[in-house]
């Protein structure tokens, strides 16, 4: 869903934004805080912040309409996570690294998920990646973000995204022998 510059975002269109992008935001948050119910809380906070700050969102023009909405939401999510981390500690902290993986734990009975052997190898290989490369890879492959959006979401140049993804894929391919 595109939010165009200068258009008043009403509740209905925002509701669509929420429905469509909750999984993305939840993943971004969960990979940084590791706790599911906390991630749900902070996901809600992210959208509420987005709602409050919707007037300041500069949607893209027609050529790139909608492409930076996801990046914008990810950036808000990072701030929400960082603020939460700060509230837990006295000294200022940066955004926590995306150190967690949002895959169901094989020992997690509640989710009842079972990974076959190949998937399990992939899961282990993902764990082995450096956090930022893994994050880029998941944002790209699972959430479908463009390089530009990933660059915004991770506050780095597009070139870093490009090389990071290439490196992540090399390591994963080597690890699982795909």
């Amino acid at each position, binding site marked *: 869903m595109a939010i165009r510059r200068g258009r008043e975002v009403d509740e209905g269109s925002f509701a669509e934004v929420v429905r469509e992008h909750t999984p993305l935001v939840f993943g971004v948050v969960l990979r940084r805080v590791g706790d599911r119910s906390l991630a749900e809380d902070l996901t809600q906070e992210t959208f509420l912040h987005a709602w409050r700050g919707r007037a300041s969102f500069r949607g893209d023009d027609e050529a790139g309409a909608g492409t930076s909405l996801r990046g914008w939401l990810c950036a808000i999510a990072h701030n929400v996570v960082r603020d939460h981390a700060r509230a837990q500690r006295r000294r200022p902290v940066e955004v926590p690294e995306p150190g967690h993986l949002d895959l169901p734990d094989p020992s997690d*009975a509640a989710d009842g998920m079972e990974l076959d052997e190949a998937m399990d190898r992939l899961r282990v290989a993902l764990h082995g990646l450096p956090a930022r490369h893994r994050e880029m890879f998941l944002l790209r*492959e699972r959430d479908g973000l463009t390089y530009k959006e990933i660059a915004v979401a991770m506050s780095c140049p597009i070139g870093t995204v490009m090389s990071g*993804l290439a490196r992540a*894929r090399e390591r994963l391919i080597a690890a699982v022998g795909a």
Partner: protein
Amino acid sequence: MTTPMTHDRARTLGSAWVDDELGAADVVTLRTHLDECAACTAHVESMRTLGDAVRAMPRLRPGPAVAAAVIAAVEGAPRPSARRTTGRTGRRLTPLALAAAAVAAVVAVVVGGGAQPGTPFAILPASAQTVALQRLTSVYLERDIVETPDGDAAQRRTVTEKVWWQAPDRLRLERTVVDAAGRRTAELILRRGADRYDAGNGRRMATRRGAPALDVLPEPLSPTVPLLGRPTGPGPVIAGRPTTTYELEIEGGRRVAQVDTARFVILGGADSFVLSKAELRNGVPTAIRTVRRLDLNVAIDPQRFELPEADEESDLGFVERAPGQLTISPPARPRGLRAVRAAAAGAAEALLFQRGAFPVLISTAAPRDASGPVDVQTTTVRGRAAVLRIPLYGYPSVTFTYERRPITLTSPLRPAELIDLAAQMYFPAE
């Protein structure tokens, strides 16, 4: 002069190509290389396969209530002001976040430690929820209750309730009961002690409004909504927090959940919050309540709360008084606490305070026996002996002596907060 193509560079370009992010000129260069290099071609193919594999993996998803609560808050709440409120947890809580948190607070399953196997369980919500309750102004609730008094199937009856509550103390309850023989009765309750009327002949009941009765606190706000469940063992450590695995009975089915005993779990469908609550007597369920619909901070037509004949005296004999006239008026009022109703019946007195939508009831009448289990503990309020009662299905209370009279303070707070409030009100630090 173009950069000479190495396998390394080809793989990097290949990665961008797989993502459709490669410029036209680079695509040409890459494809020229791939036409001649089987290894790089295979690598590119592996990258595509890898993407498919990772997309096929299951991923942890947010519950449907997450998006629903945000949408409800955005669509239902009044426009937020620029001002923010800081909750006790230190997180910034915008009015919308509070509305969403309030949704969570009211429908939360509250679970607690110290449960014995096979028993239901309950603890009190965290402080953030307490703050959230202050922003709650109204509740509309529909629920079904299947009651089996004394576990006797022959006495089973189904009750459908509609509850309207508006801060601070307007409560209206419509109840339709179908007994085991299929007879329908309707009840309209605006306060305790309402008369029943038979829907068949349309006889009008006499309802009473009046000074607060002892249990006037709106039940939909009860923070303890326990589920019937059994702890089955330790759960995994999640984000450093130990959990216990519980097997819960939800709407006749079973569900396993990992419970952090300091947090709460929200259960629900996409558009409504469905919760089952069971009351037990000697381990046997005697009533199962299922919430069908729950709307918060909705506009409620004030006409709903109008009564044809107002009665000054409540069914318990309390008569309205000015708050200042009561002897149990606290000497100190914590900030934001507002006296709403006050009444007396002989030597017994009752005061209803409000902090936002947050009720605090103070009374001198002896606490009623709550139905269901009650945890009774001795404690102190500023060094004075006190008794803490935490019923499973009601609000906790603390009873202490003030100027030679026993006073009971009842409110949906954690024990420590309750005691702290009592101390602030009656024994303010010099």
